[in-house]
Every structure is written in structure tokens, then in C-alpha cells.
């Protein structure tokens, strides 16, 4: 999504000559602005407004100022899910990036059947998070599931992966990886395909083995793309809800309660509208800050690479463009 800005900047380089009688620019952007206003400014404004009140969906509705914020920020029930969502994101990202990259590198070295493999590996992406989670829940069922049965036949003890507080969250991260690694694969495979050929040929002539070529050429050249993929996946993981909703409902205990799950429960089960809105507003701010920091870091890193100038870095951006 960081790419959105760059795409537009690049696009600006070749504007049309526009005459006086031509359709004014605002006529083209007005529908988008109207829809964006209706779907962001209206609900978020309403959410912020409600966060200053005490409302239980019913008759109780009174202004409490910043009281909700004070309660939320000092509540362990708010920070627990934030930490959980963050560690889920870290685990899922680690598995997805390693699996997606390994698969992209492996498929890159195949000569046949690549079209079919791409179709195959996007299949999990075609599924709803609900289907992914309830099907895996059944497969992992400690007494009747096929996975524990299989593990027992391998001589391993069958663990109740989703029912154990210490394994439930990593298991959800694994489900997310099963679901989304295909996305990482598709992007990184396309990235590998568009890498410049010359440095690799030169390295091979110089006698560099596969691993050193990977370490000193492929990985550094792919790094900008890997960062973008990681950012997109991270944004998605921060919104974690459907896997939790389908597989564990936040349990056992609160072991898998993500922030969105907590907000959902607070609003619809606890009927504490204002508390739920406050959490979500604060969380949205956190996500914005994280993304702004990440974009800033990227700009600094980009400037440094730009100053370093020649060689593989500039080759990479040319290859991907």
C-alpha cells in the first residue's frame, strides 16, 4: 500500500494537455471523495463522538469526556489483546515469509508445471477465514480430528493444539500461514522473475555457489519487495478476527482474544458501545502510528540506498518497475 503513493507520483510525470472546455478534474475525483467520506469520516467521526459518552445501546447516554480513554489505557483487558495480536502478527509473518520465499525460490528452479502450481497455491487465498478456521478446527479436534490421529500413528503424543492456552495462538498463526503464504509466494515469485539476469551470470562465472548467490544477490535484491509484502500482511494480521471467531472464540480463557475480538464482544455481548468504540479508536491510532513509523524508516533506508548509488540496489528497482 505504500506503493500507492509512488505509483501516483510516477503517473504524474506525463499529464495530458487540458484545455479550458475539457471536463474539470474534480468531476473525476468527486465520486471517490464522496464514497470515502461516507465510509471513513462518517463512521470514524461517529466512533470518536461516542467514545466521549457512556452508552449501553439503551437509554443510558451521558457525556463523560475523556473518562473512557483513561479507563481503556489503564485496563489490562485492553493491553492483553494488543500484545496477543502483536505476537500473532510476528509469528504469522515469520512463517509466511519463510514459507512463501522458500516456495518461490523452489518453483523458480522448476522448468515445467509452473502455471498449475500457481493456480494450486492460490487456492487457500480463495477461501473465507471462517471456512479455514472451522475446517482446521475439525481437523485438529483432539478426539476425532485427523491431525491428532496422524500424529499418534507417527508415535507423537496428540496435543490439543487449539485447546491449550500455550499452543492456541501459535496454532492460529499457523492457520493464517496456511491461508496466506500463497500470497507471499505469488508476489515474491513475480519479484524473482523480474530480477536482472546479469549479476547472477557474473557471479556464476566467478564460481559463486547457490547459497552465496542467494545470500549476496537474491536476498538483498528482493528485500524491498519482501518489506512491502510484510507490511501488507502485517496490516491484515493487525485486524485479526475471523480465524479467532471461527476456531476458538477467543479461548481457551482469553488466550486467543485479539483486539478486534475484544471490541466485538464488548459491543455486542457486553453492550458497552462507548468502551468498544474507545478501544477501536485508540487501536486505530496505534496502527496509524506504526505505519507512519514504518514508512518513515523505509524512506530513510531508501535515501541511504540511493546515496550508496550504484550496483545491485538500483538494478533491483529497475527490475521491479
Amino acid at each position, binding site marked *: *500500500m505504500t*506503493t*500507492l*503513493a*509512488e*505509483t501516483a507520483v510516477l*503517473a*504524474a510525470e*506525463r499529464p*495530458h*494537455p487540458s484545455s479550458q472546455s475539457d*471536463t474539470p*478534474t474534480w*468531476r*473525476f*475525483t468527486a*465520486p*471517490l471523495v*464522496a464514497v*470515502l467520506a461516507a*465510509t*471513513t469520516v462518517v*463512521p*470514524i467521526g*461517529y466512533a470518536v463522538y461516542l467514545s466521549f459518552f457512556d452508552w449501553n445501546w439503551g437509554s443510558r447516554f451521558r457525556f463523560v469526556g475523556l473518562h473512557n480513554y483513561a479507563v481503556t489505557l489503564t485496563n489490562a483487558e485492553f493491553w492483553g489483546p494488543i500484545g496477543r495480536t502483536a505476537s500473532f502478527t510476528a509469528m504469522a509473518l515469520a512463517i509466511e515469509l519463510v514459507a512463501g520465499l522458500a516456495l518461490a525460490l*523452489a518453483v523458480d528452479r522448476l522448468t515445467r508445471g509452473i*502455471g498449475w502450481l500457481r493456480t494450486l497455491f*492460490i487456492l487457500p487465498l*480463495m*477461501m*473465507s*477465514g*471462517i*471456512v479455514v478456521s*472451522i*475446517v482446521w*478446527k*475439525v*481437523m485438529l*479436534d483432539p478426539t*476425532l480430528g485427523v491431525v491428532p490421529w496422524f500424529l499418534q500413528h507417527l508415535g507423537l503424543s496428540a496435543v490439543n493444539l487449539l485447546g491449550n492456552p500455550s499452543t492456541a495462538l501459535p496454532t492460529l498463526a499457523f492457520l493464517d500461514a*496456511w491461508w496466506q503464504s500463497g*500470497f507471499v509466494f*505469488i508476489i515474491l515469485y*513475480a519479484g524473482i522473475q523480474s530480477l536482472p539476469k546479469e549479476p547472477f551470470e557474473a557471479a556464476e562465472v566467478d564460481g559463486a555457489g*547457490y547459497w552465496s548467490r542467494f545470500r549476496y544477490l537474491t536476498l538483498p535484491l528482493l528485500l524491498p519487495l519482501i518489506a512491502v509484502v510484510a507490511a501488507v500482511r502485517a496490516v491484515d494480521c493487525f485486524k485479526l*478476527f*475471523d480465524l479467532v*471467531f*471461527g476456531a476458538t472464540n477467543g479461548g481457551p480463557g482469553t488466550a486467543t482474544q485479539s483486539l478486534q475480538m475484544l*471490541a*466485538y464482544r464488548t*459491543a*455486542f455481548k457486553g453492550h458497552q*458501545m462507548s468502551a468498544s*468504540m474507545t478501544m477501536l*479508536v485508540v*487501536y486505530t491510532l496505534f*496502527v496509524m502510528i506504526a505505519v507512519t513509523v514504518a514508512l518513515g524508516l523505509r524512506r530513510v533506508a531508501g535515501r541511504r540506498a540511493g546515496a550508496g548509488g550504484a550496483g545491485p540496489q538500483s538494478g533491483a*528497482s529497475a527490475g521491479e518497475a
Partner: protein
Amino acid sequence: MQSRSKPFIYLVVLLAIVMTLFPLYWIFVLATRDPVQAFGTPKFLFVPQFDAFGQVWTDQGFVHAVIMSVFTTAITILIALAVATPAAYIMVRRHVRRRQPLIVWLLVAYLVPDFVVAIPFYNIFQYIHLYDTAIGLALVYQVFMTPFAVTIMIAFFRDIPPEVGEAALIDGCTSASALWRVYLPLTRAGVATVAILIGINVWNEVTIALALTSDHPTVPIAVAAYKGFAALKWNQLGAASFLSIVPMIAFALFAQRHIVRGLTAGMSR
């Protein structure tokens, strides 16, 4: 080197294939095994029974969920394309003064956690009678779908040489009619890509549909109703899951190129 690493590569790919396909096969197994026998040891080959599909499709009203999802998906695609295409076009072909704020706005819309949008709309829609309707859902989906559509359409418009449109403008076309008559026919692939990717996203969406529907659930919400069945009716759970992914698998088989192009266009730098 080449010959030594080949078996390892085949092993990685084979493992990935098995890992990907097994759960998909297992959905079929769950759906077609005899519900009583299903509580014995797992079996991999057996005579499939298709009763559960009929039970889910008609008796439990899955067909209504499919109709709701089809409408929601179609309306979402139409609104997103109608709104995003002109904006993407003009951002590529003209110097738009407030481009940067608009891009940041799209980025923010994409980042927002679903419930910060869905729960306020739960209240708002009660007043304006859009709660539990396909139109209401399609409207709320724009928050995530317009950023997506704009990004992809920008990538496709950039691929068209500017000279094409300039010729039309010199001939006296306005930019609006140049978009309609010249650019749109040339970006049919882009329109298809946006439609397919939005279709997949909306068909599978859970969070917003859960908050904004009750009597008219979409397909994923109808499937979620079976999660309580996990204890007893695995065949119906499997059948509902299977029915929900069949159209998407058809998409993947026939529109693989579009899907891959769309996913990478969102990433391209």
C-alpha cells in the same frame, strides 16, 4: 550443484502441494462421509454420500445466503468500479492538485480495523433502514475496496501510452468521453481484474457481514452458523464449507492470470 539440489527442490514443492491440498480434500471427506461413521477413525477412501449437500442447500436455506452474497458482491463491484475508475484515470493523465492527501486518505481507509467502521454503521443503518441489506453491506465494503480498485486501475492506466488519449483530445473529445470511448475498452483486463479480486474478497468477507446482517446472512456468516455443529454434524459443516469455496475455486482455475496480475499490480513499485 544443479543435480544435488534438484531432489530437495522437488521435496519442498511436493510438501507444499500436499499441505495445500489435504485440507481441501478433507472438506470433501467431511461433507460426504456417513455422519455416524465419521465418528470412527479417519478414513481416506470410501463411498461418498451427498445427502448433506441437499440438507444444507434447501432445508437450511443456504441458497438464500448464496443469493445475498451474489447481490452484495455485484453491487460492491459496480460501486467500486464506478467510483475508482474515473479517479484512477485522472490521476494518471492529469496533474491532480490534491493527489497526495487523496492517496493518504485511501491508505488510511485501507488500514482502519473493520469494526471501527462496522459498529458505527450498525447504529446508523438502523435509522436509515440499510441494516441487513445487500446495498448497505456493499456501501460499507467500499472502505476497503476503493483503495484496492484505485491502485489496480492506476497500474492498468499507466500501461496505456498517453499518445492514444492525446489523439482523441485533439480530435475534440473531452477527457470524460476519452475515458469512456478510448481508455475503458483498452483497460477491459483491468476492469476484469478489479471485479474478480473484489468478488473474491467480498464473497469471503466475515467481520463486516457479521456486524451488519442478521436475517439475511452472506455465505461466510451462514457457514459460521455451523461452527456450533462442530460437535455433531460434520457432514453439514463440510458441505456448507464446500459449497462456499466451489465458485472461488472455479475463479482460481479460469482466472488465475487475472488474480496473479491483480495481486502483483497492488504491489508493483
